[in-house]
């Protein structure tokens, strides 16, 4: 039996593979330059020049950092569990690279007579998929911290995992209000609905705020960066790591940031929708260029959110652990529940022709 007898649409397979490769490498590239952006933003906020030696305006700095990280000595402590120690950063990075599969990066393009969707997989339950990948991201931290066999790492890993699972609940609850409005879990559908009407942020400002705070906590960003609290825990759950393994942990954080920005943009800010313009009408005039503009629009929205993340990081101090847990359990979860019920009641009232 030959492989060709399997009736696979090879062109589609290649198309999807190409799309996957482009999206993955693009997100890696953006993550690389987000590290640079982070340092520059920090420098501007602190009134200093920031990295400016490697290349013009220091633009080659992230490449230099990457090469350095890649060629460093790879240390595995003698008391660590070797395979789990390697698995930890691998899992963290793989999980963060998986999120981008369901995000619609743009509309459709026509190429060689085929209509190509700029979404890797438009599945029926896109949001739940993201939820699943986020919940699996905990393992990278936990396994890495435990395998290091260092008390500080273990403490940080337990803290990080507890924090991640606590905020996951509020995140899941805050999403439900959006889903009630859209009636679909597919991110593609949600973006298309926002193209036709108002963006969801108009209906769900509180839901967005909760989601944003939870995204900060899930990405371990300040003010929720307790797993990396260097004044208490040396360096955090990745303190025994070096070389590319450390690089993967740091990189995964930046990719998570990009992906959560993309999810926020898609859910609340119209995704690839170009504001004040009728995209469908534009497509008849400009053809494939519209898709490019749409990708550009989504990227601008993502960059805005990433800047917001950085701005918060260099402005707000870190929470204490009990404050963090109280905020997550006693404020975010009840607030998200109330938001969900109020949204539901209002939509039902409106459906039954109540005017208010």
């Amino acid at each position, binding site marked *: 039996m030959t492989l060709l007898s*399997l009736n696979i649409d090879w062109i589609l397979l290649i198309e999807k593979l190409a799309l996957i490769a482009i999206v993955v490498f693009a997100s890696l590239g953006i993550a690389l330059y987000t590290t640079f952006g982070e340092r520059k933003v920090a420098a501007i906020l602190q009134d200093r020049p920031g990295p400016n030696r490697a290349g013009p305006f220091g633009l080659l700095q992230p490449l230099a950092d990457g090469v350095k990280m890649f060629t460093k000595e790879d240390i595995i402590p003698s008391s660590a569990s070797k395979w789990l120690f390697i698995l930890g950063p691998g899992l963290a990075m793989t999980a963060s690279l998986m999120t981008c599969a369901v995000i619609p990066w743009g509309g459709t393009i026509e190429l060689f007579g085929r209509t190509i969707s700029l979404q890797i997989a438009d599945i029926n*339950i896109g949001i*739940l998929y993201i939820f*699943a990948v986020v*919940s*699996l991201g905990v*393992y990278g931290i936990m396994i890495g911290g435990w395998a290091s066999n260092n008390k500080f790492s273990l403490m940080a890993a337990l803290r990080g995992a507890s924090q991640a699972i606590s905020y996951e609940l509020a995140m899941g609850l805050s999403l439900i209000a959006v889903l009630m409005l859209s009636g679909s879990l597919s991110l593609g559908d949600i973006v298309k609905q926002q193209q036709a009407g108002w963006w969801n942020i108009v209906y769900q400002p509180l839901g967005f705020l909760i989601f944003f705070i939870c995204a900060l906590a899930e990405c371990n960003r300040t003010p929720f960066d307790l797993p990396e609290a260097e004044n208490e825990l040396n360096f955090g759950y990745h303190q025994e790591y070096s070389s590319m393994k450390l690089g993967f942990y740091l990189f995964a954080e930046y990719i998570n940031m990009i992906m959560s920005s993309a999810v926020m943009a898609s859910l609340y800010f119209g995704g690839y929708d170009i504001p004040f313009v009728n995209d469908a009408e534009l497509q008849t005039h400009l053809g494939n260029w519209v898709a490019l503009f749409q990708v550009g629009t989504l990227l601008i929205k993502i960059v805005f959110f990433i800047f917001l993340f950085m701005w918060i990081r260099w402005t707000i101090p870190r929470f204490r652990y009990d404050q963090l847990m109280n905020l997550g359990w006693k404020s975010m979860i009840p607030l998200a529940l109330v938001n969900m019920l109020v949204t539901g009641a209002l939509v039902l009232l409106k459906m039954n022709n109540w005017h208010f």
Partner: protein
Amino acid sequence: MNITQILFWFLSVLALVSALMVLLSKNPVHSVLWLIVVFFAISGHYILLNAQFLAIVNLIVYAGAIMVLFLFVIMLMNLSADTEPQKNVWMKLAGTIAGGCFLISTCNIVYNAQNVSQEIAGKTALLNQGNIGLIGNLGKVLFKDYVVPFEISSVLFLSAMVGAVVIGKKEKSNV
């Protein structure tokens, strides 16, 4: 043999091998990780059966939540090599007998089901068709036909919460 069958056999072998590895691993953390692989393989099966919601919930709840709890429990235990408890031979024997009884009764149920019910005899599962596993249809069934069990499950959750707090939190006597 088409792709669905290839995937079916791949996922089945993956599930069985990882399930064996759960039992054979000496290190409990390895066991937990193999168990996660088992859940992934089972989710793959659910997707082949077009039970998409079940597949993703299996990942979120089992692989994402319950296994995190398992890892926490393992990390809570003292895992140094010198404190590893020595298992009693009689305990091992009792475990083998209990497991064997369970296996026999399971085989018996499957065998009888095939004989008794003509509907399922000699039939295979519907692959990649049927829409009952999609979230929309599932929600309709859950909130129309099964509202009462749904509410009862919330009482179950309540009792589970009480149980967790009673086990995990000791009342302070001197407050």
